[in-house]
């Protein structure tokens, strides 16, 4: 049977730039990706602190005062929460990408390693080690 091409008129809808608002899964994905934003602020603080450290005690004290402000603490707490959320999603995805051991074992292993390293760094910089 010979059907002329002109009989077809496929309708192609465009994906709007707000596609990520359509589903819960997409919103969670964007939330995971957006965790980088508060982390940028934290990295900015870190670099500012390093810069002040090289400029002498007056700068260092001004940095400490800056870090004690409520909004700075709030944003850094947000960055901390965001990085924990990102870690949770990353640790869950990792065993699927590199299935080296049972997923539950790998997830708990990653959290354990995070806890150990974080405690080690905390003790080291706190002067207890």
């Amino acid at each position, binding site marked *: 049977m010979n059907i002329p091409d002109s*009989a*077809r008129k496929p*309708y192609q809808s465009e994906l709007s730039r707000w596609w990520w608002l359509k589903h819960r899964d997409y919103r969670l994905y964007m939330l995971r990706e957006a965790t980088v934003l508060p982390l940028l602020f934290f990295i900015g603080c870190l670099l500012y602190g390093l810069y002040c450290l090289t400029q002498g005690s007056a700068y260092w004290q001004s940095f400490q005062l800056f870090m004690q402000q409520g909004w700075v603490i709030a944003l850094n707490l947000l960055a901390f929460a965001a990085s924990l959320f990102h870690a949770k999603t990353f640790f869950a*995805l990792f065993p*699927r990408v590199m299935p080296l051991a049972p997923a539950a074992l790998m997830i708990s292993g990653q959290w354990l390693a995070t806890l150990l390293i974080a405690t080690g760094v905390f003790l080291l910089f706190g002067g207890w080690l």
Partner: protein
Amino acid sequence: MTEYQLLVQRYDPEHDSKPQRQHYTVPGDHTTSVLDALLYVQHQLDPTLGLRWSCRMAICGSCGVMVNGIPKLGCKTFLRDYHTDIIIEPLAHFAVEKDLIVDMTQFLAHLSAIKPYLMNDYSGTAVHKQTPAQLAKYQQFSNCINCGLCYSACPQFGLNPEFLGPAAITLAQRYNLDSRDNGKAARMPQLNSKNGAWGCTFVGFCSDVCPKQLDPAAAVNQTKVESAKDFIISMFKP
């Protein structure tokens, strides 16, 4: 019997410039699937409704539709799970030919692009032996029924139809992991490209909607590891 309200997207290429929704009331009980409801519409209410279907038992992969915005197999989705109007649309990200029928040409082109067959030097009728452990490596990824739900779930495919997409990359990984296959080198250039595995950002929705629980997102991201290895190895080759 309960009455269910369906809002079905209709598109007649001969008369419509864009799709619109049509309302149907269908009877159903706890065993009525979305496909049953659509066939009821076609047989009892409106014979002009176009849809694709075949096996009615989640094997053929023909009856994929969007149900309330989520890609589903019509035969594996039941009216009993919906308590409001049920909105049925053709699979997202594909061009609509008519009503619920989409053009899957692009999807099929992506599937064939990754050379989905065993490539090896065996000749004649030689037996391809494989241990259960070797089978287990790829078996999960070999259960794809080519329904295309993962492409409707994938925003990267929606934004860039050239992206090979979840099913094609999963199929490539299925053959790359097969001990009887030597075709990995022929598949890697496709998978290494920007429209290959690296086009994926691990949204992960494809794995949620897969009716066969293949976990295509895992396969795609395992392919990224393979692609990175392939790149590093290629640096040491003359």
